[in-house]
């Protein structure tokens, strides 16, 4: 059996599955039940300054995007940071860490952008003996209007400055949680690194309006007829998160910066993908909020079996395995030529491939008598649209043309690897060496 134990910036946990800072980690009751269910660690719901507790809306705070069968594909929220007294949270954190020494317990923080506020809270958090802190520079709603959360995360200089304060005033490992609501994720990651961060975690939620009520004309969730943008999370945001994690993992400036992957992790597979793209562990929020804490069992059993099947003895052999394969478009092999191929035995003759290709692509599928659909190699550009719209798995597949074969569409002979940088049509092309 593969070993799922992880050490992320020195923080040990029996498995790489942590709960992200959010309602599932807002109190001792939840966190203890999560540990009992098998979660390897948690990032406690974001704490703020001492003083009058945070006030949340008293109407609905979540919106949703459903797929068929009401599967929750994405959720958005307008919840703020913890609304429980700081004192209570700190007391519970200390107790939980004492009772569960083998699990990771990181505390998320968000206080105003002045050194004193950070120094004060860090001192109190340090007394809990938690494993580290995560700086919430990601929350895109509510707190950002007050100059915190993503208002900090969108300005690399602020990230660097605050991270520096944190490292100066505490010995605790420091994770900087990034917002995806930014043009280039590498900049805030670099800033965190410059400030002395031990790791970054991403993504926090994506600014969003999930839906509009077409009778009342209020955005959802509606608070008495009005709505504010919220933060989107869940399966739908995973592709955004994967790309951002990969960008950081392959950026020469940040490639050695540990990453905690967040965003839509729902199954062991999602987790494995984040880790293959360089994440040292993953954090989960929406999946736990949708299905309950027990889903971690599937993540554990699935990842173990996968590692066993691959002959990997631990997660460290998985982390970063896909990073060398993430490249820029300009380096993709233009001599990699494929053609769609329809397995006539598997085909159920729905014609979706035909409609897609005929109406919106390259007219490369022929519809023959008896609803027989066949690819016309001389037209097929290998775009993959037919594969994606086909309801039958593996019915349409891409077949690679071997070296030396002639592509019936272009009449060109398939040659060895060659990319855009040396292509004839590229005005900037360098002569081939």
């Amino acid at each position, binding site marked *: 059996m593969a070993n799922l134990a992880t050490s992320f910036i020195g923080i040990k946990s029996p498995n790489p599955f942590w709960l992200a800072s959010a309602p599932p980690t807002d109190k001792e009751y939840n966190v203890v039940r999560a540990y009992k269910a098998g979660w390897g660690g948690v990032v406690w719901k974001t704490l703020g300054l001492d003083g009058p507790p945070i006030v949340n809306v008293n109407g609905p705070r979540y919106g949703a995007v459903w797929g068929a069968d009401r599967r929750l594909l994405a959720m958005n929220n307008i919840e703020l940071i913890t609304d429980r007294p700081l004192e209570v949270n700190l007391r519970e954190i200390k107790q939980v860490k004492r009772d569960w020494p083998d699990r990771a317990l990181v505390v998320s923080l968000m206080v105003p952008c002045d050194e004193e506020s950070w120094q004060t809270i860090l001192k109190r958090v340090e007394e809990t003996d938690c494993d580290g802190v995560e700086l919430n520079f990601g929350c895109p709603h509510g707190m950002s209007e007050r100059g915190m959360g993503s208002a900090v995360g969108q300005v690399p200089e602020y990230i660097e400055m605050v991270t520096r304060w944190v490292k100066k005033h505490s010995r605790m490992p420091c994770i900087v949680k990034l917002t995806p609501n930014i043009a280039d994720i590498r900049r805030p990651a670099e800033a965190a690194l410059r400030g002395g961060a031990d790791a970054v975690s991403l993504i926090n939620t994506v600014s969003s309006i999930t839906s509009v009520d077409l009778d009342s004309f209020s955005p959802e969730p509606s608070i008495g007829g009005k709505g504010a943008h919220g933060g989107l999370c869940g399966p739908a945001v995973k592709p955004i998160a994967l790309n951002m994690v990969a960008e950081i993992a392959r950026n020469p400036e940040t490639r050695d910066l540990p990453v905690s992957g967040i965003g839509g992790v729902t*199954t*062991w*597979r999602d987790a494995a993908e984040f880790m293959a793209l360089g994440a040292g562990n993953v954090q989960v929020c929406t999946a736990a909020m949708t299905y*309950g804490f027990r889903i971690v069992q*599937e993540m554990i*059993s699935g990842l*173990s*079996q996968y590692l066993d099947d691959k002959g990997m003895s631990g997660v460290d052999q998985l982390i970063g395995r896909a990073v060398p394969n993430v490249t820029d478009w300009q380096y993709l092999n233009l001599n990699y030529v494929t053609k769609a191929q329809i397995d006539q035995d598997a085909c159920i003759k729905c014609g979706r491939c035909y409609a897609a290709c005929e109406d919106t692509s390259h007219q490369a599928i022929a519809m023959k008598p008896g609803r027989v659909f066949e690819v016309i190699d001389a037209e097929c550009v290998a775009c993959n649209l037919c594969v994606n719209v086909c309801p039958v798995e593996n019915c349409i597949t891409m077949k690679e043309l071997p070296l030396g074969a002639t592509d019936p569409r272009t009449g060109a002979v398939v040659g060895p690897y060659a990319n855009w940088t040396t292509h004839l049509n590229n005005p900037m092309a360098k002569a081939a060496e």
Partner: protein
Amino acid sequence: MTTAAPNSPLSPGIVAGRLPAEALAENFGDIAPVMDMHEARVAADRCYFCHDAPCVTACPTAIDIPLFIRQIATGTPEVAARTILSQNILGGMCARVCPTETLCEEACVREAAEGKPVEIGRLQRFATDTLMEAGVHPFTRAAPTGRRIAVVGAGPAGLACAHRLAMKGHEVALYDARPKAGGLNEYGIAAYKVAGGFAAAEVEWLLQIGGITLHPGRALGREITLEGLRAGHDAVFLGVGLQGVNALRAEGEAIEGVRDAVAFIADLRQAADLGALPVGRDVVVIGGGMTAVDAAVQSKLLGAETVTILYRRGQERMSASRDEQEHATASGVRIICNAAPVAIRGAGTVREVVCAYTTEGADGLKLGPETFTLRADQVFKAIGQQLAGVPGVLALTGGKIAVTGAGRTSVPGVWAGGDCAAGGEDLTVTAVAEGRDAAEDIHAQLAGA
């Protein structure tokens, strides 16, 4: 090309070869073939992963159904099988034979919502078949304890008990009166539910755990005694099922052509060539349970022209589930309710069954004055089995071995479970649960001793 059968459904009397070999092969093939991966994923996708799921509560072995379905949905059917088998080592058999429509699938919230439950039984089969086809036995034994336990009866109860004990590191001697292990899995379950020799293959797979020595052809009360077993072992488990048959108490019960349904089914299950198995042209099955349905349907599948189930009470009282009743009628079996046999007639061999309509009142079931006659050359009795041949020292209740807790009998050091023990429905899955729980209890008691 089909080979002509020597006889036809219209041939009189009890004869073999009413249908050509191809038709028999088709009739007795797998009734619910295993899903493919795509089908399984679509089916798995419908599970809501309910909290404290009602299906788990409804499963006598309490398999973590939402978890195993989620494991299928995420492409790991082998781990799903492990989840199933850790609770129910005969999960492969149960996937085939459980009346899921009265167990997990009846409790499924989607049954309530849409009248269409998640296909739990078929998903379970998908997972367990995937693992078993790979030849994997996913469990290993704990360090040897040096304890020896005798298990009598290698049916579902005995097998589940033996496996769990072996896992705990004990040595198990498994005795069975019959030449083959499996109990009713091997001799009783309808053939089309366990096509392809599954029962025997499953026993072989189960025994891979090691530490279980099978002694077939050794019966309690014949080659072995309870005293002997108690003296030579640290504990004894009895899972001997129900070997006696209830009497019909109708005139003519002894005429040739009247037979116990369970014995007929056992012959059918063991027949090397179904074309050589005789069956009547007009068959009457008396009873209202699973055995009645199985005897009737399989008679029809063998080529009987008419098959009638005769049940003395109302249809809603039949212990065969709605699905099974529908399976019978869809197979061409006629079900007559509220009628009972009063006489079986025939000179030498059965010719007809005289029946009376019944009425059910406060003072029980009564035969009415009106009668009718069914043509019959073969009559099967499927009116229930009873305990037989267990040592007299064991206290009984309601005709079964009395037990407290996890199968403790009145005799110290002796446990019992499955059909022979009081409590629970007479189902494969219940037998597995009781065998497993008795093993845990035996283990706990030996560890404490």
